[in-house]
């Protein structure tokens, strides 16, 4: 009987199943590497373990006793603490206060005063354990991302956790900080703390984990001691299906006519000297880890972020201004990675979402009087073209659509503008396999119509399946370029993971 036992957990959101009967075990003092593509169910299963979500079916036990957390608080009380990818700290409070915010110790039980001395001492101990050399009274807002990451760990330790879940802990860390983190994790392990380590960086998993569990499409498709898992094996298990059946062939090849030309784009602390071109009918892939500068590049091109130097040209003409409208007028469309927050108006009907970027093109220029008939016709046409399955685009709210259909809405709203350049940032994130294939088809028809596509994805095999060329970025710089003929998952990952010198901002 393992210390933590998770048995066939199932969960679905908005009717879309994301976990089917997932199960695994964890001993104390053991490190379990949990890997899988985006949308494979890693985060969901961990959120269930951490009490953020409740499972629809299945059960969990800790040291033999049933464990069914109703909230993250319950989880903490049972010794499970979850270090989320986006940190959970209060920048307006000091480190020590962040550690004890759930309840400060009192000098005497009857005296409702914070025992500053005690938390000071305790915090100092904890900070020593994680080798963070700052006074406990420092405001968190003054700490770097990496330091904040460490404070999160200290927080977990302060609740004397038996199990700590790390979700992509290294994405925003420098190499030095990563090494330090690994030492600490090793020490935690030595203290008999069980650790679940989620990461895309298979190299790290190989280096840290004792055992590995691989998830795909919400199912556990393999688990065992690390010895049995080479990086290649992990990858093939993660990807599973043979590339060809998932990624349809494209009829027309790319032309030589350059549509988008990016020259030496630079913004300090973000990206450095990024240059590339995309021609008609070409799909260019950007691979790299979170914070490598992929999305940042896209956002700068589309005018959502400032840049210090460099230039962006569409069909030879430089963009008029650093603003989305300028980019749109030049013929660029942009599907952002944050669908709910930036792609859609969740509480508006599909029709309004489709119409939003197309109002100006369907209205009299002077009066802004909308030609509602043609707008409605176009919307209908596009929703048919992307095979949107929704009862009535005028009444159904975006919120009530499945992830795949939501993404189709975002695609359709941009397609209505007949863009020359389409930037796709994680187009298949949180989308079930079926919808993925459809989205790939849409992208292909788009490309066949002569559009130039810039595709960003954390799923290397997706890039391999869709792209003509792939640029690997890390720490804001382009590290390598791969032509279709010499695509190779491992070399691409390598390139994406090599860390150059990086100034700590």
């Amino acid at each position, binding site marked *: 009987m393992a210390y933590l036992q998770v048995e066939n957990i199932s969960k679905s959101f908005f009717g879309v199943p994301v976990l089917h009967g997932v199960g695994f075990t964890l001993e104390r003092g053991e490190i379990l590497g949990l890997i899988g593509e985006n949308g494979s169910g890693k985060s969901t299963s961990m959120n269930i373990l951490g009490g953020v979500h409740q499972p629809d079916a299945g059960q969990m036990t800790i040291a033999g006793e049933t464990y069914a957390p109703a909230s993250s608080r319950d989880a903490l009380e049972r010794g499970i603490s979850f270090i989320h990818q986006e940190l*959970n700290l*209060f*920048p307006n409070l000091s480190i020590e206060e962040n550690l004890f*915010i759930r309840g*400060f110790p009192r000098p005497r039980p009857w005296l409702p005063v*914070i025992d500053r001395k005690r938390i000071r001492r305790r915090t100092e101990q904890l900070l020593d354990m994680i080798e963070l050399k700052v006074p406990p009274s420092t405001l968190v807002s003054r700490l770097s991302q990496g330091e904040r990451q460490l404070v999160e760990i200290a927080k977990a330790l302060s609740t004397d956790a038996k199990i700590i879940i790390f979700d992509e802990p290294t994405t925003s860390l420098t190499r030095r900080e990563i090494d330090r983190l690994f030492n600490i994790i090793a020490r935690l392990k030595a203290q008999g703390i069980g650790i679940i380590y989620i990461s895309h960086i298979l190299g790290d998993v190989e280096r840290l984990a004792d055992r590995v569990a691989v998830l795909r499409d919400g199912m556990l498709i393999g688990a065992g001691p690390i010895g049995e898992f080479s990086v290649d094996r992990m990858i093939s298990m993660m990807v599973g299906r043979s590339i060809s059946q998932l990624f349809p062939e494209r009829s027309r090849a790319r032309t030589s006519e350059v549509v988008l030309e990016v020259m030496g784009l630079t913004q300090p602390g973000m990206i450095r000297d990024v240059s590339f071109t995309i021609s008609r009918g070409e799909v260019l892939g950007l691979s790299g880890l979170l914070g490598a500068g992929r999305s940042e590049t896209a956002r700068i091109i589309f005018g959502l972020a400032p840049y210090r130097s460099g230039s962006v040209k569409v069909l030879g003409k430089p963009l008029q201004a650093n603003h989305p409208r300028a980019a749109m007028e030049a013929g660029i469309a942009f599907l952002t990675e944050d669908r709910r927050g930036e792609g859609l108006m969740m509480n508006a009907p599909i029709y309004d979402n489709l119409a939003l970027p197309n109002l100006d093109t369907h209205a009299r220029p002077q009066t802004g009087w909308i030609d509602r008939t043609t707008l409605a016709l176009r919307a209908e046409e596009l929703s048919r073209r992307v095979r949107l399955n929704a009862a009535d685009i005028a009444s159904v709210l975006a919120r009530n659509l499945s992830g795949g259909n939501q993404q189709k809405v975002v695609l359709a709203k941009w397609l209505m503008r007949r863009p020359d350049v389409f930037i796709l940032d994680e187009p298949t994130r949180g989308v079930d396999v079926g919808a993925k294939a459809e989205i790939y088809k849409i992208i292909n028809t788009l490309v066949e119509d002569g559009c130039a596509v810039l595709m960003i994805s954390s799923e290397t095999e997706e890039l391999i399946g869709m792209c003509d060329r792939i640029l690997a970025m890390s720490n804001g710089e382009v590290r390598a370029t791969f032509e279709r003929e010499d695509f190779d998952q491992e070399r691409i990952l390598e390139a994406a993971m090599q860390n150059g010198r990086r100034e700590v901002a």
Partner: protein
Amino acid sequence: MKENNFRWVLHAVLRYLPLILFAIIVASFSLMSSRFLDLRNMVNIVIQSAHIGILGIGMTFVLLTAGIDLSVGAIMYLACAVFAVYLVALPIWLALLAVCAIGAVFGAVNGFLITRLNVASFIATLSTLFIGRGIALFVTGTQLITLPKPVLELGRTTIFGLSWTVWAFGLTLAVSLYVLSQTTFGRQVYAVGADPDAASKAGIDVKRILFFAFVICGFLAAVSSLVSASQVGSISPNFGIQKEFAAIAAAVLGGTSLFGGRGGVLGTVFGAILIQTVQNGLVIINADPYIYPVVVASIIFLAVMADSLRTNFLERIDQRPIRVEGQGS
């Protein structure tokens, strides 16, 4: 790095703009009238700003949680009305306790509406403002009521030569300072205001914190009504009217942010005194009384502007500038 230093300097200037204004105001008034700077007048200012100060301290608790309470003026009137009409018979200390209890209960109602029925604090308290005033007008029969002797005497009682209002003011400040800085509740108020989602993930009972912020606000509104009533010795139907705005102004002047999580009661007290100083000074230099509100409003406006610009800077410093910022408030 340089940019950041520059930002922090600018940020500091914005942060302390109210202080700078205060210095300028005091300086110019004392130049215009010799009487302005004498001790007795300083005491006057504190006495006159006591009720707004106490009200503002309560408001600060709510603002720190990124909420707002527009009903405090109504609470003041209701609490005192009930007191003057029904409780005069009671021994004074008991009556005073009752008044405070009324305020706390009213605050609890607000808290209930906001935490349990999920009504936006703005509209919830705007409605209870009118309901409260309505009930109070009913209680007083919309009449002006002269308060009984004991209250008048209370208004005049001095402890060690200082009016009781000053002591009440000081005590409120001390206690709230202690609560906000030295208790779990106080620190959690700041946490909730900074990021409610993170707070609930961290296992803080967010709703509970919000609820009690409103209870405290209501309670202090009642206290402030006692201070004010004992000064004017009577309550008319426009007693406490629009005091909510004065209180919010005091808090914001003191650097409490409407976006929650930043600020404190010390600043609020300063804000209340700043407002009162301006009015007092204007009287002493015999200025046209009709420009008082105009002057005060302009100062408040400057403070708000400084606060927002500062917030924008903080956003730029804390977050990755790559993100499109959402809308404030």
